[in-house]
């Protein structure tokens, strides 16, 4: 294992976070009950054309194309595609942008249907980080969430990835679902700790509009999530993951030292990235854009030689600064106001200082050098704090 600290992997806010490329694979075998991602099932016959379009769209990118410091294949379930297709897409990224020698190249995977062979292939293709959707290690909780895999499958998948040679493995967990007891959550955490991933993301379940789960809650068939209980569960995660040597570097993310996710740190540092694929978002210098949501429309755009962009918004300095607060304050390190000043100028900072002053005097935020962060005790009310600084 390398122990050299790479920029971004310490989990600290970066004034110059590099450049990221995000690739969206909008396919799943089945939709989970809580999921509102842009993903579709039953479209196996579309994989081929989608990959072709994706490759073509990447190659004809006309925006700034600095060398990528991180690449992220998200979904959906990217590992549904044959390794060869994933390799082709990654090659296109390399061809158009180039990848830094130490670039972090992540792929999201679901535990089911991934064996050691797949991981060896991914490693060969150039991926060096795998992120698993584990969610829980309790069968009844997995059933409630509508997940297809068993706890054993998940643990096996993590082991297989590590055996194949992936150092950087992440496990996503979800807590505070209506089916989960306090001890269920401990069981999941303890099981994950034993599997020794070097990164864990643990999210409070959010009931998103339009999901099957939202309908169940609205009709009273499933109780709504309890925010106090979720706060307790977050505390349990903090306790157990911390004891296992994983440090929380963002609201919902823990990593062993030097193993933070560089791509996500770039997001939270309000950095620039290009996004490819159906519904993918990109951000370059205050311009946020997003592509056509439906895979069919995305493919048609590429085929017709027209842009696949569906919309964009351009933010002024103040809005950019507000957004940078919203994102940067998620990081445990907080954000560096000296760097912020260089990026956005003094004015948008000046207008926010009285609020900062109030929040620090109330113990909700704190300074460390020129870094401003949310006090650890106030992590779980970051939303309220960010809303004031937006």
């Amino acid at each position, binding site marked *: 294992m390398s122990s050299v600290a790479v920029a971004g992997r310490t989990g600290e806010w970066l004034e110059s976070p590099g450049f990221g490329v995000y690739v969206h694979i909008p396919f799943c075998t089945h939709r989970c009950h809580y999921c509102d991602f842009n993903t579709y099932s039953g479209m196996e016959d579309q994989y081929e054309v989608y990959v072709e379009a994706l490759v073509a769209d990447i190659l004809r990118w006309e925006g700034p194309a600095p060398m990528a410091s991180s690449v992220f294949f998200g979904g959906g379930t990217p590992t549904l595609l044959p390794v060869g297709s994933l390799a082709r897409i990654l090659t296109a990224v390399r061809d158009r942008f180039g990848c830094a020698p130490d670039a972090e190249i992540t792929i999201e995977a679901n535990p089911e249907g991934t064996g050691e062979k797949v991981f060896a292939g991914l490693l060969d293709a150039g991926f060096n980080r795998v992120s698993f959707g584990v969610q829980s290690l309790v069968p009844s909780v997995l059933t409630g969430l509508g997940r297809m895999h068993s706890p054993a499958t998940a643990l096996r998948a993590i082991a297989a990835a590590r055996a194949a040679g992936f150092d950087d493995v992440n496990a996503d967990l979800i807590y505070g679902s209506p089916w989960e007891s306090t001890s269920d959550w401990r069981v999941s955490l303890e099981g994950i700790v034993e599997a020794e991933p070097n990164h864990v993301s643990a999210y409070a379940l959010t009931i998103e509009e339009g999901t099957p789960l939202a309908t169940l809650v609205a009709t009273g068939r499933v109780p709504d999530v309890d*925010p106090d209980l979720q*706060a307790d569960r*977050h505390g349990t995660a903090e306790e157990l993951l911390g004891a296992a040597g994983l440090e929380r570097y963002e609201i919902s993310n823990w990593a062993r030292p030097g193993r933070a996710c560089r791509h996500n740190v770039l997001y*939270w540092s309000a950095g620039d990235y290009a996004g490819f694929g159906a519904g993918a*978002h990109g951000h370059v210098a205050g311009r946020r854009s997003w592509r056509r949501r439906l895979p069919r429309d995305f493919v048609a755009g590429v085929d017709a030689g027209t842009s696949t962009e569906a919309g964009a918004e351009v933010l002024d300095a103040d809005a950019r600064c*507000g957004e940078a607060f919203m994102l940067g304050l998620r990081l445990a390190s907080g954000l560096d106001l000296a760097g912020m000043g260089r990026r956005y100028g003094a004015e948008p900072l000046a207008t926010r200082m009285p609020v900062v002053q109030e929040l620090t005097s109330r113990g909700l935020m704190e300074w460390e050098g020129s870094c401003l962060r949310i006090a650890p005790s106030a992590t779980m*009310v970051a939303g*309220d704090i960010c*809303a004031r600084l937006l």
Partner: protein
Amino acid sequence: MDQAHQRAIAVIAHIDHGKSTLSDRLLQLTGTVSDRDMREQYLDRMDLERERGITIKAAAVRMEYAANDGKRYELNLIDTPGHVDFGYEVSRSLAACDGVLLLVDAAQGIEAQTLTNLYLAVDAGLEIIPILNKIDLPAAQPDKYAEELAALIGGNPDEVLRISAKTGEGVPEVLEAIVEKVPAPTGDPHEPLRALVFDSIYDSFRGVIAYLRVVDGRLTSRQQVRFMAAGLDVDADEIGVMSPDAQAVELLDTGEVGYLISGIKDVGLAKVGDTVTVRPGSAATALPGYREPKPMVYAGIYPTEGDDFPLLRDALDKLKLNDAALTYEPESSGALGFGFRCGFLGLLHMEIVRERLEREFGLSLIATAPSVGYEIELTDGVKKVVRNPTDMPDPSQILEIQEPYVSVMIVTPTEFVGTVMQLCQERRGELKEMHYLSTERVEIRYKMPLGEIIFDFFDRLKSLTKGYASLDYEPAGLYGSSLVRVDVLLNQQPVDAFSTIVHRDKAYDYGKTMTERLRKLIPRQLFDVPIQAAIGSRIIARETVKAKRKDVLAKCYGGDVSRKRKLLERQKEGKRRMKQIGSVEVPQSAFIEALRVDVDGSKT
């Protein structure tokens, strides 16, 4: 027309018992309004009235009627406001009449407000024609209620007319009964003019239109007249009658009913109850019974947007032109900003004013809890009236506090007598009388502080009696009481809008109710918020809004930055709209909800 062939009448009825429908039939039968022109419920003018189903402003309509005796009569139908708050105005309308139609729903029986008005009519010595309406309804029980009515006014159950205003059945008999039973007016045509103003409305084109009945003498147009109580001399620019539209006339003869327009721009100068006479040759004395309108209930009214204060002032100035009973003076509140302390005849009047301010002037308002006027004698002998709890002096300076009492009448099915008495007892009521209207219904009278009525009383009465009881009250003087001010503190900071004056024995209940209500209404903050109720420095109730423990977007990656930003922007906007009490953010809706008391005494 000569006095012998005139009849002035009013209809006394509970809401929905069919007054408007009967009025329509009378207008049609007498040919005053052609069937084609018949608009539903002709006499109800304002939208507001129509929606709330109450008649706020009286109107008078003249009808010509060819009776069975072969003679023509001039009938004047004077409308009466149907609610407790307008008791004085009802009494003036009745004073302008020779008789009343007591109209009762044959499926419901008589209600409390109708009883009050009936007693007013009896006191005024008016001929009463009892009528049961809606006999076409399957649920009608005319025999039963005829007995109730007969017992009330004396007489035989078979003298009670039975009609259906809807189908028209029995309505011709009503017209005959008016001619036969109601006496003709007996004023003296040779005396100087004395005309009773029984209603007064403001019209933006014509100014004030005063409705009046000529009691003695005669009124001719372009004469100079004097409003005696106001001491105001004006020219009678136009006189006329409503039939049902306005028609100018040259003369209003003795006994006739009509209107007078005289260039007055403010109803406060042509008040209900005033006497109009001529000048020169004025009458020596005015007609009896004039009274200044007196507010009974006070509340602070504040714009939710502080910038709207000037708009609120303009709106009140305009409303006042049409509402002599409304009073207002500026005040300020730490919690609510700048507003006005307004005085109202009662809770319904308050609700009407508030609705008109919001609807006609597009204002968004917060009203404080209503209060009554307390007369306080200080230890140094000074007397003062306190209409806003925050003006209450320190208890050590107070020698005595007096509060207004009302005489309350409740009509309820006998099965609820116990519940009603318990409620009244709780509200410091003193039982005065019980009168069985029939074996099933009873009229109960209590003397009670008005302050107890304006806080939630009607609501409680209704829910305790499954909606069957009805309520009415009238002022009954001032009495000494042991009263204290209860303050409500948020995070140690008193919120003036929530202070109230209550009886010492009720202080704890009020404190507990308010703190509990607020605990549910105030959103969780980033710290624990204690909510306390206190008398002076003594805490009598306490609740805590626990600090919120989770307000965080669990996830926020590159794909949803815009969406998450919008989410937080909405949250930020919500914060901006909140009132800041110390460090506590309180949404407007919490004030509105916490201060909500149910008010409408008119609905059954």
